[in-house]
């Protein structure tokens, strides 16, 4: 796969309130303090939609807006790829409960919120972006699958593509069968060529599953990585937060991992290739 350039990052997880605040935690400069995920209100949505927005929508919109602002892109410029292990757990649980009862009438809003691409639909409504949008699922490998789709789309279609990966815990009884430890979302704006906003270069490559998957420290962050499919992104985020070159391997399929060479901005750009002058490190 051709390299892609990370132009902006959004992050929302338990004790991880945005990309800027989370970087010191990810590189071990600051202790990780687990706390319930704080999701910002979906201020991009019109007030009537904001009130009834479900958790997956709020999460996706929050990280998407953060990443695009960092990338200095207009909200309508980027194509989008949404990746999650499943739909909104609470919505599915409510629908299943109603259908198992004697009165099986569903709410139309709940029904349209049950589709896998609900956050993508609301992202469009919120931003007026008419660009292509894909929503996909790949169980525990959903983040890697989304990153592959987004990176390939960026290089083949030669346009910026934002990946938004998110997962939320399922309520019982579904949660007993599909434990997801926390609400977590990450957004990466990927560009086929470097720009003034470029943070790093990623070179993705499919590897066999015999490669050892990268872990994160401390152990409480590692537990989050293992417990939430979208948090499989944490080793990549830690690599993006540090200043040196990194090689990370993330979970994808039972027989396949996604390996990434991560080169921070100053090394990712050729001499004088960056349009914004910075003092040399």
């Amino acid at each position, binding site marked *: 796969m051709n390299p892609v350039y990370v132009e902006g990052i959004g992050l929302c997880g338990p004790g991880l309130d945005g990309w800027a605040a989370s970087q010191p935690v990810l590189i071990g400069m600051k202790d990780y303090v687990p706390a319930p995920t704080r999701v910002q209100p979906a201020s991009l949505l019109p007030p009537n939609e904001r009130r009834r927005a479900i958790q997956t929508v709020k999460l996706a919109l929050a990280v998407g807006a953060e990443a695009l602002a960092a990338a200095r892109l207009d909200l309508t410029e980027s194509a989008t790829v949404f990746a999650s292990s499943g739909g909104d757990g609470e919505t599915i649980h409510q629908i299943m409960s109603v259908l198992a009862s004697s009165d099986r009438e569903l709410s139309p809003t709940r029904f*349209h919120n049950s589709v*896998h691409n609900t956050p993508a639909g609301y992202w469009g409504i919120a931003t007026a972006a008419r660009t292509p949008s894909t929503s996909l699922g790949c169980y525990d490998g*959903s983040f890697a699958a989304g990153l592959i789709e987004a990176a390939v789309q960026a290089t083949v279609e030669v346009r910026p593509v934002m990946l938004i990966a998110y997962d939320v815990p399922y309520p019982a009884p579904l949660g007993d069968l599909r434990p997801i430890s926390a609400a977590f979302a990450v957004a990466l704006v990927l560009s086929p060529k470097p720009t003034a906003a470029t943070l790093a270069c990623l070179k993705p490559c499919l590897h066999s599953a015999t490669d050892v998957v990268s872990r994160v420290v401390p152990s409480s962050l590692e537990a989050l990585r293992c417990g939430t499919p979208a948090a499989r992104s944490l080793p990549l985020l830690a690599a993006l937060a540090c200043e040196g070159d990194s090689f990370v391997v993330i979970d994808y399929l039972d027989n396949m991992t996604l390996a990434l060479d991560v080169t921070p901005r100053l090394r990712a750009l050729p001499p004088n290739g960056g349009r914004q002058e910075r003092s040399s490190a």
Partner: protein
Amino acid sequence: MSSAVQSLPATMPLAFSDFTVVTSLGRGRDNTVVALREGRSALASCTFDNFPFPTYVGEIAGLDAAPLRGELAGFDCRNNRLAAITLREDNFVESVAVARQRYGAARIGVFVGTSTSGLLQTEAAYRRREPITGRLPPDFDYPRTHNTYSLARFVREVLDLAGPAFVVSTACAATAKVFATAARMIAADVCDAAVVGGADTLCATTLYGFHSLGVMSEEPCRPYDSERCGISLGEAAGFVLLERPDHRHGADTILLLGYGESSDAYHMSSPHPEGLGARIALEAALASAGIKPDAIDYINLHGTATSVGDSTEDRAVFDVFGAATPCNSTKGFAGHTLGASGVVEAAFCALAMRNGFLPGSPHTRSVDPRLKSRYVREGYPVHIERVVSNSFGFGGANCSIVLGIAT
């Protein structure tokens, strides 16, 4: 790394090395062609899951009696049963085996779409919850049935493939968008070939859900009819093996020539009133194929027979093609098969090109005079070489694909 964008091979065209389809019209290509030519609809009064409201559905017979066994037993649900039956039709498994021999299992991707996945299994499990604890029954296998990824995992297993895989789930546009995904993956050298398509099956969630939206017809759906009053649900599966065309592909090979994707950015369950998203997808598809609108011989519409859906699509189609290009919706044959409709209609178009006919529009009696496109009600024999197929879904997901036949 100084050359930021390395040159990539063109995404188009790609060849349908093989394809297969199962709807309520019948199993496999031959049965489907007969029904399409005859204009025979398979829609019947709904008895599924004791659904209490009058409606018609395209239900596939025999799925209840076809459980998955042995190593595949954990995948057993209506959606995967239909996928299994479909993969076994039309020698599809054998064609994939040839490709596997040629490229290796790890170089064949699986990009399939579904909206329902095995949701019916979870509906049944919730009716069997343990009364005191509320637990779901121990035989319910969530990851391999209900989870969005289930179908791709199942297809990979059945076809013995080991390449990159995921499920695209963009409601009723899912199995059109997988063509775009596969084309990009092959262009980026992530894989050499791909199995695309998908499956969607009847379940209470979609029956009661569309009923709650007030868009379900009490009679068989009548796309573009002046008295159209909503959709008839159906279930279906279809799969296509996509590869770069080469000398092995004969004169009647179906080609993927282009794709176009867009978002409505308007409403979760209603299309943009001026058909703006649909028009963007259509124009992008033609641009990607490098052809002008007048090169298209037939447009297979999304045409679900809702009042607003048909009129907004008509506006988009008329804006791009004018009133010259024959078009219609084939939803009257086997219903709206939701997430499967993209690949089903790609298969219908492929069969129409190969067998020299234009399918009709069963149940459409008088075309709405307010709609301006050239709507074809009765099918007829004709040589067609290039077609467009539209798929639009909840959340404003739009995808148009351009198909052609090698001459």
